[in-house]
């Protein structure tokens, strides 16, 4: 399956830089500080995982990288160029699948190609990615006919069909059952290896971060700043029971303020 992807893939990768990024939301009567001076440099092709308590600003960080919002202070840049708006080279897979309910799975996956006028030349990619996320039998289903996990996979397919150079994933496997989640983790890893995009994954699952990422970033409570950074050098495929990973997990949990015996 990764072979099929490698053949068709034209994706490259980009470097992503957050430099002194702070962000706040203006509410009616007050402002909400969400990010506090976050600096993070991600190399082309690197796989970085973001861990942090819920509500600390992880999704906000991804929205800044996607160009959906501009930071209040600091700068976000790709390959040294400031990010000024959304661009299909950098695709965000949202926490909720957010499929368009009036479009079938196939038509949802086609959105990116349609929007960029590439639907004619690249239509074959739709079938490829649907096969990749094992939804090829569901191309003509409407979103309300899918399970939560299938919807999430469709959302992933909708991103992948564009061959992004930077894939921003916001807790993409959070709603999947544990077996599907394991399979999807492996598939994401295969994809990343064959397509070579840069990946920034938000997760609340410490194990997931350690299994997938080259580097794990731990964020503090809101307003989020980076409190720890951890490199994972183990070669893939990694084993859950690898002694080194278990040690890393323990130290990560400690950083997050949770004792060993949980």
């Amino acid at each position, binding site marked *: 399956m990764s072979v099929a992807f490698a053949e068709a893939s034209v994706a490259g990768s980009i470097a992503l830089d957050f430099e002194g990024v702070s962000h706040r939301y203006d509410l009616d009567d007050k402002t909400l500080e969400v990010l506090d001076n976050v600096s993070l440099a991600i190399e082309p092709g690197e796989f970085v995982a973001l861990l942090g308590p819920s509500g600390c600003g992880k999704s906000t960080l991804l*929205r800044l990288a*996607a*160009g*959906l919002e501009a930071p209040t202070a600091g700068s976000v840049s790709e390959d040294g160029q400031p990010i000024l*708006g*959304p*661009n*299909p080279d*950098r*695709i*965000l897979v*949202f926490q*909720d699948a*957010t499929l*368009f*309910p*009036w*479009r079938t799975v196939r038509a949802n996956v086609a*959105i*990116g190609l*349609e*929007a*960029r006028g590439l639907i004619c030349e690249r239509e074959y990619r739709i079938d490829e990615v649907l096969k990749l996320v094992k939804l090829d039998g569901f191309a003509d289903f*409407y979103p*309300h*006919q899918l399970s939560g996990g299938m919807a999430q996979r469709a959302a992933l397919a*909708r*991103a992948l069909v*564009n061959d992004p150079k930077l894939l921003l994933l916001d807790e993409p496997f959070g709603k999947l059952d544990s077996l599907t989640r394991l399979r999807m983790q492996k598939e994401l890893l295969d994809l990343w290896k064959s397509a070579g995009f840069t990946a920034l994954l938000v997760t609340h699952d410490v194990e997931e971060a350690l299994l997938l990422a080259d580097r794990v970033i731990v964020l503090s409570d809101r307003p989020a700043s980076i409190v720890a950074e951890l490199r994972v050098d183990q070669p893939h495929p990694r084993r859950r029971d690898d002694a080194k990973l278990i040690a890393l997990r323990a130290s990560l949990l400690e950083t997050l303020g949770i004792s060993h015996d949980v």
Partner: protein
Amino acid sequence: MSAAIEETFSGTGRQSVTLPLAGIWRNGLLAAGTWLLASALTYGLPDVITWGATGPFAAVTLVGALIFLALSVTVHRLGSTGRTLVHYGPWFIVLGLWLAAWEVLTAKLGWLPKPFFSPPEGLLHVYMTDWDRLLICIAYTGRLWGLGFFSGIFVGFAGGVALGWSKRFAYWGMPLLKLIGPVPASAWIPCTFFIFPSTFHASIFLVALASGIPVAILTAAGVSQVNRSFYDVARTLGADNRFLIFKVAIPAALPNVFVGIFMGLYYSFAVLVVAEMLGAKFGLGWYLQFNTAYSAYANVYAALIIMALICAGLVRLLFVARDRLLGWQKGIL
């Protein structure tokens, strides 16, 4: 007992209606009975008030009774049409009773007097004697309504999308729309006379206004309520504003748009009488007024029934169109 079974069968509407009892449609038989009753009463009892179509009405109801009689044995062979007929069986029975009672209370007993009430035979008389004028009226009204309604919903839809999409448009447009919305159509008559070159144009404007305003309001509401994250998703996938409007905002707002079109359809019919006050020579609305002025209420009722049937037919068509376009909603609603 078997009627009860049949009730449940026809209620669900989808199962096959083949019954063990030789496939007789009992409600069909009963309907034949009530229609025959109406026919017999009409023919048998003397008229206290003459309306001029006693014989034809008795004949029409008799034919109705014969048709139901024939259907009561053949309906199960008619496929989906047959199932629809079976579904409305109780209605056919009651309709026969209603025709009988109506005829008796008006023409036969005279309790409901001329000219305020008309028996069914009175309406039949109108259709028989005035059919040519009614047909012309239907054609004239059809032209006025078609031009007014379609231009109204087109402009209403386009305006609604603009109002829902653009903040600046909404700033100026929404207050105007809210002011114009509740103004009764007849209040427009003086200035429409001044603005439009002919009364026909003025009439079209009134129909268009009545149908366009609910479409505009509901479309605007629909577009402005679209889930923001749909826009975010589309934008990260490379969508421009054009795509956001036509491929995100409008499809997402379409259920609302249809509610607006349904309302516009009803309003446009209600406004026809007023619109045809403006110097029209023909038209159902004109026909209603003309005959009201002469206390020819049988003609008024006859025209009202035609209008109601046309409106119901159009509503039905609109439902078909909606189900085509909004099939994706089936599992959500």
